[in-house]
């Protein structure tokens, strides 16, 4: 336990040098999306349809966008930083010459990602509440699935990044993996609008479960499956991703 916190502490130190810029963009991104899509586009949607799933488009969008933002934070923090620690800056190699193990590195990394995602989500909720897109209680509750979503992606992306030799694979991951998920996992519209064959695909992605759970908690409605099912699946994704990441670290770094 104690040794897990060591890598966490390193990341926190590094963050101390960059937190201003990071917090600033955590404010600006949700602000831009919520205003442009939620309010302006939302007005149009609401006029045409009278809202989605019984609420205004802005209220529908906010929790989905929260989960999607958490996904991006979890994936982003587990991509280039992980490959840098292995290949470019080699800080994982330095740490492995100390009593720390690969498991400590991965767990410390993921613990830090959880903190970061929670921070990004909290700022999101502040902005959304100020814009009237979320109630404070609903927003705060939705931070829990947001963190689970961020971690579900963090585990898998850490595993994936630890297999790579250069950043091209990561660019492709974001272009062909994270970006489509961002657009098609129920964030901006319900997945029932997707062609029939795509719906089951959405069921497989952690993001959709995160979106469903966040929306259900933020709006106080029932999700597609039960809350426990969505949460359980997210936890399962986290567990599998973490195990894969630790195994890949061991294979890559202990040679």
């Amino acid at each position, binding site marked *: 336990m*104690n*040794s897990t916190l*060591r890598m966490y*502490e*390193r990341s926190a*130190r*590094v963050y101390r*040098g960059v937190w201003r810029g990071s917090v600033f963009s955590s404010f600006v991104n949700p602000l831009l999306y919520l205003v442009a899509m939620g309010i302006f586009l939302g007005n149009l949607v609401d006029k045409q349809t009278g809202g989605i799933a019984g609420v205004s488009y802005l209220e529908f969008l906010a929790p989905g966008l929260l989960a999607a933002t958490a996904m991006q934070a979890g994936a982003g923090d587990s991509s280039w930083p992980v490959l840098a620690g292995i290949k470019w*800056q*080699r*800080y994982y*190699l*330095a*740490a*492995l*010459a*100390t*009593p*720390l*193990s690969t498991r400590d590195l991965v767990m410390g990394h993921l613990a830090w990602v959880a903190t970061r995602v929670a921070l990004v989500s909290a700022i999101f909720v502040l902005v959304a509440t100020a814009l009237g897109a979320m109630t404070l209680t609903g927003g705060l509750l939705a931070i829990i699935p947001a963190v689970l979503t961020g971690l579900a992606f963090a585990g898998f992306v850490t595993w994936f990044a630890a297999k790579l030799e250069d950043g091209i694979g990561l660019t492709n991951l974001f272009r062909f993996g994270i970006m489509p998920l961002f657009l098609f996992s129920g964030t901006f519209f319900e997945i029932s609008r997707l062609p029939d064959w795509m719906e089951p695909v959405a069921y497989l992605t952690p993001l959709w479960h995160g979106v469903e759970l966040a929306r259900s908690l933020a709006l106080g409605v029932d999700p597609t499956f039960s809350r426990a099912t969505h949460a359980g699946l997210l936890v399962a994704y986290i567990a599998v991703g973490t195990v894969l990441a630790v195994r890949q670290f061991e294979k890559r770094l*202990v*040679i």
Partner: protein
Amino acid sequence: MSDALVIANDLTKRFGDFTAVDAIDFEVKQGEAFGFLGPNGAGKSSTMRMIGSVSPITSGSLSVLGLNPATQGPQLRARLGVVPQEDSLDVELTVAENLMIYGRYFGLSRAVIRPRIEELLDFVQLNGKRDEKVDKLSGGMKRRLTIARSLINQPELLILDEPTTGLDPQARHVLWDRLYRLKQDGVTLIVTTHYMDEAEQLCDRLVVMDQARIVAEGTPSDLIVQHSTREVLEMRFPPGTQDENVAQLSGLAERIEILPDRVLLYTPNADATSSEAHARGIRPVAQVSRRSSLEDVFLKLTGRSLVE
């Protein structure tokens, strides 16, 4: 029980089908400076990484500080200091932060680490750079910081993999001076290098590695006595005339080594050999007589020059 800190028997490291370290035996004793000499690719770093318990051994046996690296890695690494061949400093942190975070990896409290940071920055003469980002340091400073970092846990055994490679002579000198002090303080050192002069001065004992094997072992002076003559006479000839001159040299020395640009004559007495050569009418454009060095030992053992 022997008083050896490191005991390796038949120690072997394979990467797939490739054997990087081939059944080597050695012992490192408490308080000594032990060297691994050898050209690139000899297997020095692979050996260092096994001793540092960051790389599992393929076969044979290895004991470090009485512990088994395979099963007691974390306990073992807690008592080691490591300077890896490639720098792995944290470029996102400052000089002092690098030491703090590294100390924290060992589970030391901040209160314990803080005074050590000041002592170590003093020791490696980086006090002025305390709050600089690591990117801003020169190569020599980075190496010194890496040495300071390796000492944060007050290790019993310090493993240095080519600590001075790539540095200018002055930076090298500062570094070796620090290592000499550590040795005087009783820290056991294992050093790899391909700078023979430094190895001769610092190491109590050393092994010469070539192509995954240990080809010789002993104190620097033993190795020279065993594998070379006392002195060497080096001769350079005008371009294109080396071959004809070499033909006339036979019998003048115990052993003659012909390099592309010069000829080395191994002899107990370089001056006497020089006079004899002169009497035979041999006129080199330049000649030097010197004592045998580890470089000569290496040349003899492997047929190759160490520094390419």
